[in-house]
């Protein structure tokens, strides 16, 4: 078994376009859940709106790519308002249910036969981002850096993805350390007390939901442009929970947490995948065992196990405070 190859696969995917896309999605979730305490279980709905906003603007309406990006973001803002207006005045669980449901409704509507004239139905759209790839300065051949090889097109989309991550890291860095960010953190801790201090809590929660949703929409764009294909079923609910997993791994409510978490998440997922493939090809007892299993499912069992271990030893994530003592414990 070639452990080095497993490690290489894992490392490649932790810096690849998927990881960049998930970093954006998790950064959005961090604003919502990590800082403002909003339970958004439908982050994938924002990804879908972003991805489709881009794809359909280009294919159905013949618009340039940048118009598609604007349409995707506008769609995410609209979705945020639509979900937020009825739920953000209520207790947190209502937002959770509404977002979870809305994401599924979006997926099912986009794949329905009735929506086919707009959405292309279950088959979705392929090869719609040629304009983006035409601008690729790296060519399409294999590139190699520090022993990691990646195709030029993957490098190009990964570069754009990570540049977006960097840009929005800077934006959240400034915002979270400003009085604006202080209000979000206060809302997470005690919404009523924050209202009593004259803050319009509803408005701030809405801003966090919409801004976080826009980041997820950008993540959805990067993800689908990198695979050159968009289908409704690529946006199943588990993606929302992958974003949660990445965020909790890295540390909720920390600036770097979602980025580190997304990289680690893909490192673990691809590492597990590669390990299984190696075991299968090696044959023997391990191979029989691995071959008898659905490797797609097993990789997430392994990821889940790693997550459980992380949570046991670093409950606040890698960048979170090591161990927070229970509030008030020193007065007992």
């Amino acid at each position: 078994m070639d452990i080095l190859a497993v490690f290489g696969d894992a490392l490649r995917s932790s810096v690849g376009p998927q990881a960049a896309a998930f970093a954006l999605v998790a950064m959005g979730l961090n604003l919502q859940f990590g800082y403002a305490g909003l339970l958004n279980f439908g982050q994938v709905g924002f990804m879908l709106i972003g991805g489709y906003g881009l794809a359909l603007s280009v294919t159905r309406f013949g618009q340039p790519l940048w118009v598609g990006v604007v349409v995707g973001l506008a769609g995410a803002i609209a979705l945020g308002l639509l979900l937020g207006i009825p739920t953000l005045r209520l207790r947190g669980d209502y937002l959770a249910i509404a977002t979870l449901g809305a994401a599924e409704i979006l997926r099912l509507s986009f794949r329905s036969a009735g929506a086919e004239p707009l959405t292309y139905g279950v088959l979705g759209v392929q090869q719609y981002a040629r304009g983006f790839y035409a601008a690729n300065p790296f060519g399409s051949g294999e590139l190699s850096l520090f022993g990691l090889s990646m195709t030029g097109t993957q490098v190009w989309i990964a570069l754009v993805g990570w540049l977006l991550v960097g840009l929005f890291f800077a934006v959240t860095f400034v915002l979270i350390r400003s009085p604006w960010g202080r209000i979000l953190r206060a809302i997470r801790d005690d919404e009523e007390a924050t209202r009593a201090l004259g803050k319009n809590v509803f408005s701030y929660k809405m801003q966090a939901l919409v801004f976080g949703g826009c980041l997820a929409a950008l993540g959805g764009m990067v993800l689908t442009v990198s695979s050159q294909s968009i289908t409704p079923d690529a946006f199943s609910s588990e993606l929302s929970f992958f974003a949660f997993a990445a965020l909790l791994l890295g540390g909720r409510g920390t600036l770097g947490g979602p980025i580190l978490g997304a990289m680690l998440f893909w490192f673990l997922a691809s590492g597990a995948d590669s390990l299984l493939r190696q075991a299968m090809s090696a044959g023997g007892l391990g191979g029989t065992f691995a071959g008898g299993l659905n490797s797609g499912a097993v990789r997430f069992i392994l990821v889940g196990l790693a997550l459980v271990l992380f949570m046991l030893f670093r409950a606040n994530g890698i960048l979170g405070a090591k161990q927070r003592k229970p509030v008030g414990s020193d007065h007992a």
Partner: protein
Amino acid sequence: MPDTVTPLLHVHTARREFGGLVAVDVRDITVAPKSITSLIGPNGAGKSTLFNVISGFDRGGKGDWAFDGEDISNWSPHELAARGVIRTFQAARPIATLSLMENLLLSAQDQAGEHWMRAMFSRPAWRRREAENADRARELLARLKLSELADAPAGELSGGQGKLLDLGRALMCRPRLLMLDEPMAGVNPRLAESLIEHILWTRSEGATVLFVEHNMDVVAEISDHVVCMAAGKVLVSGTPHEVMRAPEVMEAYLGTDTEPDAAAIWHD
């Protein structure tokens, strides 16, 4: 209380029903400017409900009430705060993961950096304001004897310190009307003394105070005016002396057959 001064807060009518139950149905409660007015009454009298209705936390109330001549019926808390009406809660509500200093900076009402655009694009301006606010926050922390804890997370405070922080946050808002919901509940006598001092100081700074309180000694010591409620209605209002002597007040607190023993405790 002479009626010649225009009241700062004037509750013409306020009514709150829960299903068929009328929890509050009051008319003509006035709070004179620069006064300390206390709202007393037995448990279930509707004091806290009235507080919640006036402070915009319970939007189910009906009626009309005015602040400084302006109708503020069913305004939201942030609209009220913009006019200088600030409330606290019965239980201490420290914002746990923020430091004490951040709790106070959060409470300032004039920070333009709370808008995301200005937070992003006019950093120098909001940082200047932040520095000014921090000066005031340090003064308040010193006054409340919490200076040493300025950078500690507020979640680490004891219950009593939490009450002090709540008061500090309210003062940081530079309130015109400070509404305190049982500020002395569950605090030890020494802390209660210092809370009283801080409340008196607040008034000397120009604020008007309306507070709900159970402790009659405290009420008698600092109030200019007392409103006693029972079963959702105003029973009596007047000076502390008048109210405490009123037979209906004693009856409401102690039941109908006023035994001499009970009355003796009352006047202690």
